[in-house]
C-alpha cells in the first residue's frame, strides 16, 4: 500500500498523483453511497477540498488514505446536514432489493450486493476499507478517527449483520450442498480477487 516508488531527487507534487487515485476514490464513494450520481458529486467535492488543502498533506504519507479520509468526512458531514435518505431511483442495485436466504448453500453475488446495500454506511465503510480495498486496520482506524479495536469490532459486527441479511447463521455449514459448478465459480473469483 505504501509504495515508495519515488526516485531519489524526484519530488512529485501530490497534485500530480491525484488522478492515479481517482478510480479507488470513486470506488470507495460508490461503496459508501451505493449511488453513482451521488458518489460522483462526493468525489468532486473531495477533489476540490483536497486541492485547497494540499498544504496540510504531509508528503511521504499515504495520499490515498488522506483522500479517502476527506471523502468519508465529507460524506458524513453532508449526511448530518441534510438528514435525509438519498433516494435510489437508478441506483447501483435497485433491481435486486430483497435477499432470499442462501440455504441452497452458496452466496450468489446479486444476493450479496443487495445485502451489502442494506448495511449502514458505517458498516459498508469498515468492510470496504479493511475487507476490500486492502488497508491495514491501523490505516482504517486513522481514517475513521477511531481506535484499532473499534475498527475490528465494527468490522465483526458488520460481517455478522451481512451474514444475518444473507440468512446465514454464524456457524452454519454453508458449503453443504454446493455443486461443483458453484465451487468452481467461487474459487475462480477468489483467484481474480487475490
Amino acid at each position, binding site marked *: 500500500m505504501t509504495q515508495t516508488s519515488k526516485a531519489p531527487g524526484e519530488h512529485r507534487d501530490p497534485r500530480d498523483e491525484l488522478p492515479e487515485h481517482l478510480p479507488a476514490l470513486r470506488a470507495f464513494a460508490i461503496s459508501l453511497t451505493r449511488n453513482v450520481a451521488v458518489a460522483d458529486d462526493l468525489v468532486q467535492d473531495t477533489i476540490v477540498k483536497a486541492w485547497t488543502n494540499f498544504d496540510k498533506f504531509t508528503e511521504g504519507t499515504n495520499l490515498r488514505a488522506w483522500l479517502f479520509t476527506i471523502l468519508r468526512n465529507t460524506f458524513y458531514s453532508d449526511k448530518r446536514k441534510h438528514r435525509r435518505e438519498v433516494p435510489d431511483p437508478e441506483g447501483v442495485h435497485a433491481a435486486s432489493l430483497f435477499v432470499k436466504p442462501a440455504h441452497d448453500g452458496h452466496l450468489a453475488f446479486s444476493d450479496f450486493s443487495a445485502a451489502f446495500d442494506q448495511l449502514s454506511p458505517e458498516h459498508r465503510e469498515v468492510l470496504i476499507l479493511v475487507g476490500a480495498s486492502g488497508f491495514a486496520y491501523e490505516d482504517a482506524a486513522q481514517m475513521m478517527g477511531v481506535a484499532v479495536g473499534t475498527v475490528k469490532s465494527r468490522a465483526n459486527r458488520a460481517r455478522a449483520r451481512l451474514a444475518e441479511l444473507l440468512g446465514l447463521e454464524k456457524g*452454519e455449514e454453508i458449503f453443504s450442498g454446493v455443486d461443483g459448478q458453484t465451487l468452481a465459480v467461487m474459487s475462480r473469483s477468489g483467484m481474480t480477487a487475490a
Partner: protein
Amino acid sequence: MAQSTEPKASPDKATAKGGDNTKGKSRKELQQQIDENLRRVYEEALVQEVPDRFAMLLDQLRQKGTGK
C-alpha cells in the same frame, strides 16, 4: 546449540487438526466468502471508467493555481 534446527514434534498439532473444529472452519469459510464478495463489490466500482468531468475539474483547479 543447534537444537533449534530439530524438527518440532507435531503429533499434538495433527490431533488438533483432526478434532471436531467444523464449526470454526465453516465460519472461517463464510468469512472468506464474504471477503471475496466484498472485493468484488469494490472491484466492480474500481474498474469503471472515471468520468471526464474529473479531468476537467483538475484542469480548472490547476489553471486557477489555488494554493500555489
